[in-house]
């Protein structure tokens, strides 16, 4: 079970700039840390985060292990049309999570 928090307005005026904030639960294990047995804990990170508005990509971010655990990203988008904003996280060990929020643009 992956916990995702998304902070986005439910309604916006056409052409308005809105701020989107996302947070996802993930250890973002760097692969550089030794565990309790002295061996390195294998890398397990989210490699890519994308956001799209009704299917059109508005942001694509490639993470490195230097992104803190439970990655938080905030960014802006121009409200163009009603529909849904989809956020997608993919990473090591087959990690793939997708969340969408609906938005009304008037």
């Amino acid at each position, binding site marked *: 079970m992956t916990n995702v928090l998304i902070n986005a307005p439910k309604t916006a005026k056409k052409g308005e*700039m809105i701020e989107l904030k996302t947070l996802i639960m993930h250890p973002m294990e760097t692969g550089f840390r030794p*565990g309790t047995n002295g061996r390195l804990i294998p890398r397990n990170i989210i490699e890519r985060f994308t956001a799209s508005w009704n299917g059109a990509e508005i942001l694509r*971010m490639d993470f490195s292990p*230097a992104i803190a*655990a439970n990655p*938080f990203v*905030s*960014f802006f988008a121009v409200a163009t049309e009603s529909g849904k904003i989809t956020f997608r996280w993919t990473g090591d060990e087959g990690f793939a999570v997708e969340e969408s929020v609906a938005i009304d643009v008037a």
Partner: protein
Amino acid sequence: MPGTTKRGTTRRTFVTGAALLSVLPLASARATPDAMAAAIKEVVGDNAIREGRMTLDLPPLIENGNAVPLTVSVESPMSEADHIKAIHVFNEKNPQPRVFDARLGPGNGKAAIGTRIKLGDSQKIVAIAETSKGEFFSASADVIVTLAACLEDLT
């Protein structure tokens, strides 16, 4: 054994040791800023990088390097003809020089990204923005980290 010989040996050992100590940290500290420069070169190529139009915000004094809030924003009209295509963030002393690469477009309206990063040491953070016209802008920030990331499991 005469005292003079013993003292001479100790001093020689000390001098050699001190010389080694002074050389070693310098040699290892220089390696990673080079890696950052190489990573920046990979992104920018031979294009000129200009200062300005860009702000990189992060606290100057960081108590906990495990989650450091970072925001980077670039002044840009973000129109179809003139927008910020990408923002890259680099660091000097983490194990890897790259922090993140973000691809933006006119749909963002404002070229600004906020996130939280890990920092392994006091160092310089550099952000590079690429415009749709192929120009590059940069901003940098020096931070002091009192508790580095990655160390909590070693204690």
